[in-house]
Each structure stands twice: as C-alpha cells, then as structure tokens.
C-alpha cells in the first residue's frame, strides 16, 4: 500500500506536464543567470573611450573572461555624457527620490486607512468610495495636465515636489491597510483609551506597531518601484538625474552611434552602470525576500 502510494507520487511528479514545465523553467533560469553573468564579466573588462580605436579589447573578447579587472574604472564612467552630475549626486538623487516618494506614500496611505477604519463616519465613507472609484475607473493621459499643475505650484523639477505629488492614499495599498485595521480588535483601542491615551497615542502606540510588517512590505515594494523608475524622473525631474534615468540616457545616447566598434567599446561602462543600478535592489531582495514575496496576494498584498 505504502509502496503503491510512493509510486503514485513519483508518477504524478514526473508527468509529461511536470517535465515540460521543469524544462521551460530550467531554460528560463539558465537564460536569466547567463544575462547576469555576462553583464558582470563585461563590466570588469577594459573600457575604451577612444571611439576611433579599432583595437578595443571588448570588441575582441565579447564572451571571454576579462584579462584585467576594470570594474571600478568602468563605474566611474557612469556620468559620462552628462558631466553636470557626478555618480555620487545621482546616487543621492536616487535615494532621495525613491525613499521620499515611497515613505510619504506609505505613511499617507496608512494614516488615511487607519482613520477610515477606526472612525466610521460619513467622511470616511466618502474617502473609501473615492479609493474604490479611482481604482475601477481608468484615467488615461492626464500627465501633461499634472506637469502643468506641478509647474504652477512650483513642484516641477523638485524632488520634494515629487514627494508631495506621490503622497496620496489612492490604490490597492489603501485596501490592504484598511482591511488590517478593520480586523484589529476594537478592544485594543478601548483599553488604551481607558488607560488615558489620547487619539494620537492610540494610533502611534497601539495601531501602528501592530502593522509594522505590512508597512515595511509595502514600503519596500514601493521603494524598489521608485528606484527602478526612469520614466517619471525623465518627465518631472530633468535637473535631478537618477541612476536609472542616467542609464537610460547613457544607453540611448550611445546607441545613436551606429558603428559597431564604437558601440562595443562603451559596453563595459554600460554594464558597470547596470550593476550599479541593479546590485542595491538585489541586496534588498536578498535581505527582505520573504517579506517581499510572502505578502503578495489577491490584488496586491495581505497583511
């Protein structure tokens, strides 16, 4: 009986569907690792700024290992082509943009969700309805008008302006916080009230500590989203180049050069830039992978 069960299990696991999926997934992983490996190896190769040179070491060694280690020299070329920004400045801009936007967004969302869940009045119902309605109704192409408004309010081209513009309570994360606060026993709040806590103390000392992991998960997801973003900074922050935006400009500018040798000579610098932008995200993922992956559920996250 036991043997039969074991045989059934193995047969089930090695069905044609399993084998097919295993094959596809293995190829997928190998392909992904190959991309990274090539980027890392290439980032360590010699960079040649001399575009007229036909003896660029990268052009003659596209898939081989680097003969010498040039990674840090290549990283220093990240700002080439837009000398107004140093690598440090771009890194600071990126951290300020991603940390600020994600932090203010998550704080505002969390606080508004708390207020709506805790105080069930007519205004909370309007706010809740507004969130649902804006989620269902897709509004397309209002960015041009938003840019004009940002200009008018003096927020355009300012990192703190982006913090303000992104500090809204709309979207699925509101529903995540709302459902967590809603399921929290009311006895917690009442006990704190009896102990003499005011409304602010109840929120800060009772409610918020109970949702710290949900808060962290959403903050991390948003942080990575903003870190990776080059489209919005390209529109709203032309004077504050971020690392992803620099990479975008560097790659497209470079691709305007059609000559193969000229293009390849800059690839090590480009791949070094790729590593600069990617490695912090990979480190974050390694530290918080369970938090990032474990909390994702229907329509977003669960608490």
């Amino acid at each position: 009986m036991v043997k039969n069960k074991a045989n059934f299990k193995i047969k089930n696991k090695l069905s044609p569907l399993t084998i097919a999926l295993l094959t596809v997934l293995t190829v997928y992983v190998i392909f992904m690792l190959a991309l990274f490996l090539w980027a890392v190896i290439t980032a360590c190769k010699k960079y040649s700024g001399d575009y007229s040179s036909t003896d660029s070491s990268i052009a003659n060694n596209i898939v081989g290992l680097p003969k010498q280690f040039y990674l840090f020299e290549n990283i220093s070329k990240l700002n080439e082509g837009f000398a107004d920004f140093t690598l440090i400045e771009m890194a600071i801009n990126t951290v300020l943009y991603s940390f600020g936007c994600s932090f203010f967004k998550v704080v505002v969302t969390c606080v508004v969700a708390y207020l709506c869940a805790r105080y069930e009045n007519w205004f909370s119902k309007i706010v809740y309805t507004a969130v649902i309605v804006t989620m269902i109704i897709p509004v397309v192409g209002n960015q041009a008008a938003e840019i004009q408004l940002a200009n008018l309010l003096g927020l355009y081209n300012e990192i703190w302006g982006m913090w303000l513009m992104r500090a809204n309570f709309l979207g699925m994360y509101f529903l995540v916080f709302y459902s967590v606060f809603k399921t929290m026993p009311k006895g917690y709040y009442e006990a704190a009230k009896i102990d003499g806590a005011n409304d602010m103390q109840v929120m800060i000392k009772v409610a918020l500590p109970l949702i710290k992991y949900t808060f962290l998960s959403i903050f991390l997801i948003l942080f990575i989203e903003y870190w990776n973003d080059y489209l919005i900074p390209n529109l709203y922050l032309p004077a504050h180049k971020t690392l992803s935006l620099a990479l975008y400009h560097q790659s497209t500018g470079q691709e305007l050069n059609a000559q193969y040798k000229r293009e390849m000579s800059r690839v090590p610098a480009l791949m070094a830039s790729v590593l600069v932008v990617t490695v912090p995200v990979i480190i974050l993922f390694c530290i918080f992978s369970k938090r990032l992956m474990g909390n994702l559920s229907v329509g977003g996250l669960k608490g």
Partner: protein
Amino acid sequence: MTNTNGLKLNKKAQTMDKGAKIFYAILMAFPVVQFVLFYIVVNFQSIGYAFMDSVESSDNKITWFFSIKKITDWFTDPYKVKDLLDTAKMSLLYYGVTLCVSIPLGLLFAYYVFKKMPFAGLFRIFLFIPSIIPAAASVLMFKYVLNEVTPILFGTNALRFDTNPLGNVIFYNLYVGFGTSVLMYANKMFDISPEVIEAGKLDGALGIKEFWHIVLPLTFPTLSVFLVTGVATIFVNQYNVLMFNVSAEYDPLGRYLYDLAFASTKSERNVPPAAALGLILTIIAIPLTFGVKYLLDKYGPSED
C-alpha cells in the same frame, strides 16, 4: 432591552468627541488637499485642456481659447489617425500576447509552485527576480546578449535582437512579466483548502484535470483582477520600447502618450493634444473595463 442598549452603546462608541474630531481633521487635511489637487483638479484641468487651443503672437504671448479642434484632429488629421491606428494595433498585439501566452503560462508556473514540484521554491524566486530588476538594466543586458553574444555562441545572426526587434520585445516582456502574477496566483492557490484537493482526487481529478476543474476556478478571482485591471494597460503600458529604443513602428499607445506628455514639458501649447487623446482613450477605456468585468462576472467560472 439588551438590543436597545447595545445599539445605544454602538452609537456612542461611533460618536467622535471633540478631541477625536480635531485629531481626525488634522490628519485628514493634507491627504484630502493632495487628492483634490492631484486627482480632481488635474483631471478636470486635463478635460479643460482637451477643449482648448492657443495662438502665439509675435511677442511670444500665448492666447488661449475654447476649441474642439484638438479632439477632432485625432479623427480627421491623416497623420494623427495613422499614428493612433498604428500604435493601437501594436498595443493590441502586445496585450493579446500577454493574454494568450503570459497569463496561461503564469498560471501553469503557479500551479507548478503550488504542487511543490521539483525545485518549486527556487523557481518561485527566479520567476520573481526579473520583476524587481530595473528595466533600464535588464533591457540592456537582454539586448546586448542577443546582439553580441548569440552570433558568437550559435554562429548565426538569427537570434540577434536587431534581426527581429518586435519578436524580441514581445519575448522580453514575457520573460520579465511572470514574477508578480505567478506569485499572486500561487499565493491564491495556497489558500485552497487541502480537503477540496483531496475530494477532487477521490473523484479522479489529477494532474491537468485537477488544475482545470479545481485549481483554476478557485484562482479565478485573482485572475479576474488581473484581467480587469489589465484592460487599462492597453492604453498606458509602454512594454519597455522606450528603453529598447526600437523603431517607431513598434511603439504602443503608452509610448505615444508618453511622448506627448514629454512634449508638454517643453511648452504648455503641447498640452491640449495630449489631453485630448487622453480624454478620448479614457472614454474608450471606461466602458471596456466595465464590459470585461461584466463578462467575467457573468461567464467566468464560479468558486462554488
């Protein structure tokens, strides 16, 4: 008596004292102002711009006036009509591939993870990673490996990115698109009661039958969210073509709209065409979204 008291107590508990009202008002003030400014005002302003036109005098003074020309241009100007049709065609192609390939594959991969088949945990991580890697970085890696490495490894130019840009852009978007969806489908599948799976097994639902008759219907609410919200992506998703820097013939609507928004950063006079197109697309997107939702509610599989 008890009920009445209970009701009174509940009402009292829900009534806010003065301190609570002040606390509520102070904390709500900023979010509400922010919402009014950056959602309501922006959208009304966008509608307003759609019905405006301008002339610039010799001394660079801009005069605005009411006009529906910027809207009608999208139906009458042959160049704009062509741009719109071409980009809409590309958007539908990218969306269609997502619908027909990415979603079914994502569900199958999620099922693989759910059934804890060989290396399921590892694949779960590797399927997620591309979705957190900056697109600016992964597009470059993808493009250069295809362009420069595959000819050396395979001795042919057939796999080069430049040989088939459209196919490769579609392939890339499939490659990076699994992460979040697989995770969400799998998490939803993990919510399925083991008793339901066991009962299915007793009835002979194994392998693909189990997936089709038990797992898929119970994962449908998550799939439905993706399908409904996915409608809007037809109009806004750029499918990374900006980063790929491919020829304009492969641009979807999202990229076209982005370019219009970018032009508006140079001059306010460029805002009306973008706002007009946005309004037209929103008018199309709203009923389309509700239509998809209606169809899924009516004809989609029931969890029961």
